[in-house]
């Protein structure tokens, strides 16, 4: 296997530019960083910056259940990370990674960088680029396909669908909540999938959906959660970044029978949130995508173009967390079956919430 061979003599440099969320957003920025630093680099970020190597134990622990079988090995690359304070920073950040740091691959995290990556790719044809959540676009917003850029999209609606189904089984009140940050495409795909999943299992389930208007206001997330709970919801799902922490806050304060569902990363593993009452998390494996892109560079199998990460190739999924405690084996099997069906393309999940209403859910599962 490629992992066995020695890392190349002069290490490959991978640059990464976060979006304004930055390191520690506990969401896709962190996820991408895991793919780069923890997995590909086998190091961890330490106080005052800089890295230190991690043990194999830590390394294995960092790999989520549903990716265990995908043979993730250190790639011996060195990481250069630049955070962005402002949208204006993307291009200069990429520039200094390419020009000053001479990185082989530059990763842009988040669709906000679509333009920046697009432009830079044209400007620096000898450097490879990876873009998460969007295809590269040019100055006029037209999709472009330069030979040195690979873009990764994720079917959030698929994992949203699965956690929706799980929520449907888990709820006793027959009432569930959804908290969104701002209605931007990925968030909308999550909502659509979630609603679809619920509808598939039990159309009669009531959904209270609220948008807080911010990805960065836990206090608002908590108000929303409290409001939903006081209206009788017992399972809450959020796609609201930091705002969602507020949701877990109130779940934690109330404990059983309330369940929270995480987003993007496996929040059931996050000591800082509410592991005890995290039913599951709808996983969006930015980390894995990042890892794959780096790997392709290391192994020189890099292909430009647009890659859509689906259930099938482990791009999205759901975390086991407490599913086993909340659902019967039979129900779990049903969820798994739905998963299979989706992978086999038996049915499509809508990507826009309004479409869910006149979408006919699958029946035989």
């Amino acid at each position, binding site marked *: 296997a490629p992992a066995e061979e020695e890392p190349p003599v002069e290490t490959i440099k991978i640059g990464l530019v976060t979006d304004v969320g930055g390191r520690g957003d506990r969401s896709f920025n962190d996820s991408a960083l895991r793919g780069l630093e923890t997995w590909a680099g086998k190091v961890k970020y330490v106080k005052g910056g800089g890295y230190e190597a991690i043990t194999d134990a830590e390394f294995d622990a960092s790999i989520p259940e549903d990716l265990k079988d995908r043979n993730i090995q250190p790639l011996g690359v060195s990481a250069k990370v630049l*955070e962005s304070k402002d*949208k204006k920073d993307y291009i200069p950040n990429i520039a200094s990674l390419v020009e000053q740091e001479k990185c082989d691959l530059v990763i842009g995290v988040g669709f906000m960088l679509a333009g920046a990556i697009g432009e830079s790719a044209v400007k620096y044809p000898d450097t490879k680029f990876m873009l998460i959540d*969007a*295809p590269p676009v040019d*100055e006029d917003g*037209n*999709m472009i396909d330069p030979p040195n850029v690979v873009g990764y999209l994720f079917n959030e609606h698929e994992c949203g669908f699965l956690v929706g189904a799980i929520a449907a089984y888990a709820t006793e009140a027959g009432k569930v909540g959804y908290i969104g940050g*701002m209605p*931007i495409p990925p968030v909308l795909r999550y909502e659509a999938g979630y609603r679809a999943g619920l509808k598939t299992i039990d159309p009669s389930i009531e959904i209270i959906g609220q948008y807080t*208007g911010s990805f960065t206001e836990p206090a608002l997330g908590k108000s929303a959660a409290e409001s939903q709970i006081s209206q009788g919801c017992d399972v809450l799902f959020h796609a609201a970044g930091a705002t969602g922490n507020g949701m877990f806050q109130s779940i934690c304060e109330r404990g059983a029978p309330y369940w929270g569902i995480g987003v993007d990363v496996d929040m059931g593993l996050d000591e800082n949130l509410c592991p005890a009452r995290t039913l599951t998390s709808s996983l969006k494996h930015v980390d894995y995508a990042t890892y794959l892109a780096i790997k392709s560079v290391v192994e020189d199998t890099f292909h430009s173009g647009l890659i859509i990460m689906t259930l099938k190739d482990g791009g999205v999924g759901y975390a086991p967390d407490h599913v086993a405690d909340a659902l019967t084996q039979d129900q779990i099997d049903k969820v798994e079956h739905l998963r299979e069906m989706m992978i086999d393309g038996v049915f499509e999940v809508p990507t826009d919430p309004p479409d869910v209403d006149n979408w006919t859910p699958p029946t035989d599962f």
Partner: protein
Amino acid sequence: MKDVLKRIVFGKREKYWWMNALVPLISILLAFIVGAIFIKITGRSPVVAYKLLFGASGLFPGPYWKSHFAEMLLSSSMYIATGLGFAIAAKGGLFNIGAEGHFIVGGIAAAYLGYAKPFAGLPKFIHLPLIIVGVMLAGGIWGAIAGYLKAKRGIHEVITTIMLNWIALYLIEAWLVIGPMEAAVETGISGTPYISLSAKLPKILPPTRLNISIIIILAVTFLIWYLFYKTTFGYEIRTMGHTLMFGMEAPKAAGINVERRTIQTMFIAGAVAALGGAFMVLGVLFQYPPIFEGGYGFDGIAVALIGQNEPLGVILAGILIGALRTGATTVQLAHIPKTFPSIIEGFTVGFIALQMLIRYWIMKLIQGRKKSVQTEMGGGAK
């Protein structure tokens, strides 16, 4: 910078006029010293930090200087815009916290006029000016609302500008951008459609991104200076600046239409601050993204204050902050958080606020007598 222009107009009046230039410089210097201490305390190397910071600030020649320089001016033009937004209102005795709102209103207006059919596709020399005018109108009106409520209803502009900031944010980002103005999302990239070629600000320093925004804002700043110190309109606004906050009625009694001027002042303030947002959209992003995250509005207040609310001062302060922010991202390479420069910005403003103390020190240096210091202040204070 305080009173520099007053002196240009009235001839050298204050005895120690040079102080007004010296004090801000000393403030900045002190800020950098304190900043260095702060880095040291948190266990990092000030030398490295400043090397990187200034190396990439675009202020001094060095590797990649050209692009840094361009980036610096790009940010500066936006900071100057929002800075003026605050300074203009302040000159009229109004406390405008609304630059943030005006900024994004300018952004959305620029985006719309940039892509919407009737306008898009016009020849550049028509389209671009048209957008600029439209943007200033939009921002101006948003500002004038606060002015109107102040003038006609006596509602404190601080409240209205704060509230209007949020209203603008939500109406734009939770309605327009995801509704009427949403782009066809086939690319998966949301936000408004991209602006047409004819709407983009011409670049002036290829291969960098530097565009005419800096020229536009410098021109505007000059006009503002002229307005304030050379015209009756500006004269009237300044009479308000010294009286409005203290409930004095002299200008009104003299037949100055204070109400109208209040509205107009806020209009101009809004219009200029809105330019900042337009620069962002027309020169950097080329669309209004789903989440704009300005922050330029609030930094604008700092810029105005470092520049002592004087047009020339605002320009210099804008360039300083622009440089700091440009150098900011590179300091990360020394593992110093990107926000470090805003600490320095904070210290600078702090020392500006302490200028009485600094003046006192300087005075002591020249003739160690406290009395004379105080009389100097008594005589020359604003």
